[in-house]
């Protein structure tokens, strides 16, 4: 992260002793990791994590049974679960990084050394990120298990895990930033959870509410297959050999133009991960259209949770389908191709948020301090 490096002031750098960035960051990182590795809390969390992920996976394995996308569904389940719990764990690992040290009286000791605020923040951020990534690493047995079941391309898997790691890093950056800005560890942990909740839930709520603002009266054309009136007997059952016909209706109704508000969802961590994954929509088994004996809809393809999110976003981007054909109606799952990816926007928003917090943190940690919060002591 270039945002947290200390800009070198030319007139000062000449004579001033300075600490190389890598040395400083490595030292802070080692300091943090030693404390984490020698404590017990982290191992307990990892242990509980492994058991829970394992339980969910085995449960999923048993419940899902034999669909044609077993590997995909389980892989998505693990990715979604690791992301969900990562969003819960990362603030805990990062959001007391700085003010915890302040409370312990060790922050000022670091600040009187040649360590710059940027180096301190970078080291703390990397350490909390590494701590969070351990949870991802611990999930690898299940990830490989799911991959072994097939149905997930290498590209999907790599991008999923990469984006997962990036999201954990962003949450850690938010946590470290807040921990420097807030004075009490409890307050900063709660604030970080609030910010994460704003991204993960707030975006969905705002999206849902905004849908009311983009309602519009549109003419909707919908189509479906049915048996013609003439081929039905007195009981309403079709006569043998009757042919299905395509009926098209038009109606006026209020539909939300979600294509205008989909960007709100972009900053959602689940959307960023799901939208970035290049799900293979072309190679799916071609859905059959209605045959002479009615819509078979098969073979069924059931998307996993992350792919469902990805498809949901694409559907929202496409906006209401005002002209549905019979072929479309007959398909059980009709994957939408990606038109405009929203994840770069979402990632950009998240990075801006994290960078703003880290810059604020760096300002706050720059000594000598001119302003102190009420009731705080430096040492």
């Amino acid at each position: 992260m270039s945002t947290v490096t200390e800009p070198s002031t030319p007139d000062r750098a000449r004579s001033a002793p300075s600490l190389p960035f890598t040395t400083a960051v490595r030292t802070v990182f080692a300091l943090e990791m030693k404390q984490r590795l020698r404590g017990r809390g982290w191992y307990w969390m990892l242990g509980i994590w492994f058991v829970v992920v394992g339980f969910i996976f085995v449960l999923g394995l048993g419940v899902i049974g034999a669909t044609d996308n077993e590997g995909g569904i389980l892989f998505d389940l693990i990715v979604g679960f690791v992301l969900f719990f990562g969003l819960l764990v990362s603030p805990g690992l990062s959001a007391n990084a700085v003010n915890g040290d302040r409370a312990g009286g060790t922050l000022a000791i670091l600040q009187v050394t040649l360590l710059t605020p940027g180096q301190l923040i970078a080291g703390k951020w990397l350490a909390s990120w590494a701590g969070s990534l351990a949870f991802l690493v611990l999930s690898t047995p299940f990830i490989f298990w799911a991959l072994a079941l097939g149905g997930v391309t290498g590209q999907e898997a790599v991008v999923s895990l990469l984006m997962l790691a990036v999201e954990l890093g962003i949450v850690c950056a938010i946590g470290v930033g807040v921990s420097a800005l807030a004075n009490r560890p409890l307050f900063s942990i709660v604030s970080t959870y609030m910010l994460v909740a704003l991204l993960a839930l707030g975006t969905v709520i705002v999206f849902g509410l905004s849908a009311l603002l983009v309602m519009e009266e549109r003419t909707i054309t919908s189509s479906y297959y049915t048996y013609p009136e003439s081929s039905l007997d007195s009981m309403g059952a079709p006569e043998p050999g009757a042919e299905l016909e395509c009926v098209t209706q038009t109606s006026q109704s209020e539909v939300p133009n979600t294509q205008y508000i989909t960007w709100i969802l972009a900053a959602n961590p689940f959307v960023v991960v799901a939208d970035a994954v290049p799900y293979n929509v072309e190679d799916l088994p071609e859905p059959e259209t209605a045959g002479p004996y009615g819509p078979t809809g098969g073979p069924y393809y059931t998307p996993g949770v992350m792919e469902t999110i990805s498809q949901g976003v694409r559907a929202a981007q496409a906006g209401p389908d005002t002209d549905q054909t019979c072929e479309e109606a007959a398909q059980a799952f009709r994957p939408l191709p990606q038109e405009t990816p929203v994840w770069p926007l979402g990632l950009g928003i998240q990075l801006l948020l994290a960078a703003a917090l880290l810059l604020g943190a760096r300002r706050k940690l720059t000594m000598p301090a001119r302003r102190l919060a009420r009731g705080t002591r430096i040492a």
Partner: protein
Amino acid sequence: MTNDCGGIVVEGVARSFGSVQAVRDIDFEAPPGEVTALIGPNGSGKTTLLLMMASLLAPDLGSIRVAGFDPVVQPREVRSSVGWMPDTLGAWESLTAREVLTTIGALYGMSRPDRTRRAGELLAAVKLDAFGDQPARVLSRGQQQRLSLARALIHDPQVLLLDEPASGLDPGSRVDLRSLLRSLAAEGRTVVVSSHVLSELDEIADRAVFVSRGQSVKSQTLDEAGGQTRRYYIQAEPMTALAAALQSHGVRFEARRDSRREEFLVQLGTTAEASWLLRTLVMADVVVTAFAPAGGALEETYMSLDTDRR
């Protein structure tokens, strides 16, 4: 005495926290090669002043020069030449004493062999070598205090700022601290010690700056402090004979009430006057059992300032 190359010069410094004026107007000077005591009651601004000299806090007004550098404009230079020991004991509990020292050494840009060697030397100097590889959490308060001192010395600083270094130390460690600080000053370093345990500073400090309510109220050397009027306490068997002898020589005295023992307090201007009185009493056949200064030289000054003790 102090020039641009060493020592500390503080002029007219003020610093407030919100509505609290922690430091109003402090002038302070600490020449290299001497131990300067910073003396004042609790809450008189000692720690705030030390934080400003350690480049952690910017003054609202006034100027500070530490080893020739301005902490506000040149914090890096100040930090590399200053060793600061805070009054709070912050410790990374799971790290060993040796790791604490090497970590801080690394953050001062010391090479690995350098900091390893230096950490070993300092652990021996503060008599913690037996605990060097124990986690810091098993150290007692006094041991942590000594570790904190070693930490402040890790980068061999020219200026030492020690905030209450003797608190929590046992008598043996205090003696060690005294000789360590004296030897550091003898090497030409600037040593500033804040404390309110005055008896100790008498033996360590060369000079003292008294602060009260955020203002520097007096600055004197120990020699000056020793030359001023002091109170002596005298005990004799029986006390009535002592009272009679003192009255006959016109020496004013008062019975001390804050002590368990019965004793008289007299004000004497110089040590010559004290030796004259003692000789006179002995010659007058008063059985003198005790004759000593009532407090240290600095305590005498501190009490005479009498600005903050109500």
